[in-house]
C-alpha cells in the first residue's frame, strides 16, 4: 500500500475521532448547563460572599492568595474586596473564582454539573488533539499545506475555533460559551467529515503560490476566532432578553431558572465578543490584503470584485461597523451584537454559499 494513502487514512480516522469528541463534549456541556444552578442574584451573591468570608477568614489572612493584594491594601488582613462587578477578562490572578459550587464550601465534592463541565473540557481537548493530528497527517499525505479544499478548510476552521474557546474558557472560567461555539463547530465537523470530504491530493497550478497559503491560513484563523466572537454575541442577545424579562416578571421562578439565566453576564459576553473581534479583525484585514497580493500575481488584478472578494468586503465592512457601533450612542450592546452576528453570517455565507452556488474565480464548485 502506498504510504501516503495510509497516512491519509490515519488523517481520516483522526477526523472521525474529532467529530465524535466534539459531539460528546457538546452533550456534556449541554448537561452541565441544564443541571447548573443559575448564577446567584445580587442579594444571594452578597450573602454567599459573606459566608465564604466568614468561613475562610483565617485561611485568607495567612494564605498566599491574598499576597498580591497585600502590598496595596496595607495588611493582608484587609485584603478583602467586594465580589466586584468587574468583568475583566484578562485578570487572571490565579485565585480561585468562587463559583456557585464553591460557595458550598471547599471540601465538598464537585456537583454533577461541574463534573460534566470538566468532562466536557477533557473530551474537547482530546478532540482538539485528534483534530490537529488529522490536519497534520493530511498535510503529510498530500505533500502540501492542508488548506486546499473546503473539507480541509473546515477541519482547520473547527480546530482554531475550538482552540480559541478552550483558551478563553481557561481564562474566564465561562464554560457556557462552549455550547455556542461547539454547536456550529460540531455541525461543521460533521458536514466536513461527510458531504464535504475529499480525497487528499495535489492542487491545481494556480493555487500553488505562497501568497495563497498565507491568505488561506489567515482567513481560516480569523474566521474561526470570529466564530467565537459571534457565538458570544448570540449569547449576549439571549442573556439580554432574559435579563429584560426577569426584570419585567421578577416573580416568575420558571423564567428565572431558565437556561439563558445560566449564561455568563452581559458584561463578560460583550467583553469576550469584543476582545476576540479585535484580535481577529486585523488578521482578517491582513488576510484580505494577502488575498489581493495573490490575486495580483495570479489573475493580473489585485481586486476584481469576484463574488468571493465582494462578500469578504461585505463582512469586513460589517466588522468595521461593529467596532464603530460600540462607539456610537444608541448602538452599543444589543445592536452592536447584531452587527457582529451579521458579520459572521457573511463569513459563513462566503465559505459555503459562494463556494458552491455562485461561480467565480475562487469557486471550488466545478
Amino acid at each position, binding site marked *: 500500500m502506498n504510504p501516503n494513502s495510509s497516512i491519509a487514512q490515519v488523517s481520516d480516522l483522526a477526523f472521525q475521532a474529532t467529530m465524535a469528541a466534539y459531539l460528546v463534549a457538546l452533550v456534556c456541556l449541554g448537561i452541565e448547563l441544564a443541571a447548573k444552578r443559575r448564577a446567584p442574584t445580587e442579594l444571594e451573591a452578597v450573602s454567599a460572599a459573606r459566608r465564604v468570608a466568614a468561613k475562610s477568614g483565617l485561611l485568607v489572612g495567612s494564605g498566599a492568595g*491574598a499576597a498580591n493584594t497585600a502590598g496595596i491594601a496595607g495588611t493582608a488582613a484587609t485584603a*478583602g474586596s467586594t465580589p*466586584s462587578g468587574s468583568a475583566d477578562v484578562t485578570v487572571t490572578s490565579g485565585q480561585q473564582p468562587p463559583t456557585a459550587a464553591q460557595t458550598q464550601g471547599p471540601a465538598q465534592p464537585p456537583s454533577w454539573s461541574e463534573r460534566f463541565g470538566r468532562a466536557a473540557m477533557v473530551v474537547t481537548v482530546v478532540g482538539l488533539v485528534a483534530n490537529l493530528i488529522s490536519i497534520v497527517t493530511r498535510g503529510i499525505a498530500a505533500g502540501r499545506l492542508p488548506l486546499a479544499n473546503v473539507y480541509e478548510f473546515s477541519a482547520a476552521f473547527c480546530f482554531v475555533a475550538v482552540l480559541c474557546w478552550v483558551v478563553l474558557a481557561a481564562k474566564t472560567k465561562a464554560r457556557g460559551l462552549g455550547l455556542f461555539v461547539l454547536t456550529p463547530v460540531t455541525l461543521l465537523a460533521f458536514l466536513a467529515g461527510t458531504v464535504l470530504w475529499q480525497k487528499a491530493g495535489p492542487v491545481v497550478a494556480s493555487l500553488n503560490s505562497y501568497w495563497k497559503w498565507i491568505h488561506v491560513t489567515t482567513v481560516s484563523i480569523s474566521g474561526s476566532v470570529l466564530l467565537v466572537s459571534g457565538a458570544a454575541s448570540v449569547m449576549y442577545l439571549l442573556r439580554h432578553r432574559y435579563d429584560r424579562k426577569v426584570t419585567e416578571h421578577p416573580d416568575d421562578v420558571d423564567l428565572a431558572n431558565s437556561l439563558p439565566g445560566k449564561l*455568563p453576564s452581559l458584561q463578560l459576553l460583550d467583553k469576550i465578543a469584543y476582545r476576540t473581534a479585535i484580535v481577529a479583525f*486585523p488578521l482578517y484585514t491582513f488576510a484580505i490584503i494577502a488575498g489581493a497580493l495573490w490575486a495580483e*500575481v495570479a489573475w493580473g488584478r489585485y481586486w476584481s470584485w469576484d463574488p468571493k472578494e465582494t462578500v469578504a468586503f461585505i463582512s469586513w*465592512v460589517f466588522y468595521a461597523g461593529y467596532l464603530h457601533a460600540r462607539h456610537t450612542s444608541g448602538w452599543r450592546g444589543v445592536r452592536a451584537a447584531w452587527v457582529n452576528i451579521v458579520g459572521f453570517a457573511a463569513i459563513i455565507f462566503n465559505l459555503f454559499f459562494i463556494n458552491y452556488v455562485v461561480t467565480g474565480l475562487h469557486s471550488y464548485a466545478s
Partner: protein
Amino acid sequence: MTITDAPGRTTGATPRPPAKPGKVRATLQFLRNVWRGLTSMRTALILLFLLALASLPGALLPQWDNGREKTQAYLDEHTTWGPLLNKLGFFDVFASPWYSAIYLLLFISLIGCVLPRSVDFARQLRAKPVRTPRNLARMPLSTEYRVDTDPEATADRVEQQLRQRHWRVLRSAEPATAGGYTVSAEKGYLREFGNLVFHFSLIGLLGAVATGALFGYSGSRLIGTGESYCSSVASYDTFRAGITVDGTDLTPFCVQLDKLTAQFSPEGMATGFQADVQYQANPQQPGDAWQRTTIEVNEPLRLNGQRLYLMGHGYAPELKVTWPNGQTRDVTSNFISNDASLLSTGAVKIPDPPGVPADQNSTKQLAIAGLFAPTAVVQGGIMTSVFPQATAPGLAVKIYRGDLGVNSGVPQSVYAIDQGQVDAGKLKEIKEVNLMVGQRTTLDDGTTIEFTGYRNWAALQTSYDPGQFWALVFAVLLLGGLMISLIIKRRRVWFRITPIGADNGPDAGAGGAGRSLVSVGGLARTDQAGYGAEFDTVARLAGPAVPDPATEAAASTATSPEHSQQAESAAAPAVPGTERRRRQRAGLGDPAQPERESDE
C-alpha cells in the same frame, strides 16, 4: 422666524425689513446641521451598512465586468426583470451611480470626521495631563494605601516610575493640603494616531483604486508557439480600458512564444505550466535586444509598469489541406476548453481556398469544426479525452463547405462556425470524421484533409495599473494604523499624596512623621478591559504599603479573597473594611467626547 412671501401684503411705501440676513443665517444653520449630521458617527455607521448592502447584488448577480456570457445568459433567461435590473445598474454594481453615491458620501463623512479629529489630536499632543480630580474614590478604579516615605519623596518616586513607563506626567503641589502633592498621568496617545492613520489610509486607498480605474487597462490574447505580437489595442482579443484610456498611448512591447510546457498529476490535474518567451521591452528604442524568460502561473513578467501574465494554455490542431488541383495549405486554429481533460472545441476556417476566384468563394469556403482530444479514446464512435496531455491526439470534426458568412461584416466567433449560415442552407455539412495524427480524409470533390499534428498556445494577459503600488502602500498603512489603534489603550491615572496626620480624618494623629497617604484613581478612556490588572501594578508605584493600625483591627472580621473574575454576579455593596474599589459604570468617561466615548 417666518417669512411671508405674499406680495400683496407689502406696501410700496413701507418696505419690509430685509429678510436676507435671516435667510442666510437659516441657510447656514441648515448647512451646518447637514454637515454635523453627515459627519456624525451614526451617519457613518448607517453609510457603512448601506455600502455592505449595496455590494450584495455584486456578489449574487452576474456582472458584465466579470462574466459577459453569464450576464447575457441571465438576461436572456429573465426577460421580465432582467432588462430593468440592467438599466438600474445591477449588473455593473461597482460602477453604478447609486453605489458611487454611497461611498462618496461615506468618504465625505470620513473626511469631515477625521480632519477635526486630527486638529484635536495635534492639540492634545501638546496638552498636559488632566489635573487630579477632587474625589479619586469616584473614579472607576481607585485605591488608597499608606507608605513609609514622606509626600515629596513619594511623589518623586511615582513621577520617576511613571515616566520610565512612558506615561506623560504632570506633578504639582496639592493646593488643599499643605505638604501634599498630586501626580496626574496619561498614556496611549498613539491610539488616536493609529486610528487617524487608519482612516486616512482608507482615503488613500480609495484614491489608489480610482487611479487604477482611470488610467489602468488590461488586454488578453491567445498566442501559438512560434507566434509573436507587439502590444497595441488591436493586438488583443479582448481589451479592458480605464475610463481615460483610449488605447493610443500604450507602452508597446513585443513578445514571442517559443515553447509551452505543462505538467499534470497522474489524475490529470494541471499542476503547473510555463511559457518560454522572448520579449523586447522597448522595441522603439534602437538596439533593444530580444530577451528570453519564462512566465509561469503566479510568476508574471514585469516590464515598465506593465505586467505580462500566463493565464492558460491549450492546443491548436494542425491540418494540411490538399485541393484537387494539387495546391496545399497548412492551416491551424486555437481550440479552447473548459474541461480538466482539455477536450477542446474550435473551428478551422478557410475563407479563401486557393485557385478559387473571389466571386465563387461563397460556395467553396471550407470549415473544419469540432473537438480536439489530447489523449483520444473513441467509444461507439464518440471521441472523448482521458488525459490532458497530448499523448494520442485525436480530432472529431464535421467538415462544411459553402459560405462561412465572414464577409457579412458581423464579427463571428473564431472558435465556432456561424450556425445561422448552416440553418440558412448556405453552409453545408459534407462530412463527419474522426482522425488521429497522420490520418487523412478525402472529400467528395477530391480535396484531402490530413491531421498532421498540433501545437500549443498560451493565453497571455497584459495588465497595467498605476495605482496598484499606492494601493499596497495604503493597505499596509491601514493595517498598521488599525493594529496600533486596537492594541494601544488610552489610560489615565491620578495620585494624591498627602502627609499622614494632616487632615485624614480617622488617621489623624495615628501616623508618624514621614508617612504618606496615597490615593490613586484610574480611568480607561477607551477600553476598560485589562486596565484592572494594569492599574493594580501602576497604583502600587508609590512604594510598598505599610499597615494602618486603624483598619487592621476592623478587617480581621470581614474579608474575602480577592476575586476579580467573579464577573458573573453584579456589583455588590462594599464589604466593610474594603480598601480597594472598582466600579464600572456605563458611560463613565470623558464627557467632552460623548460619541467617541466607550463604555467598555
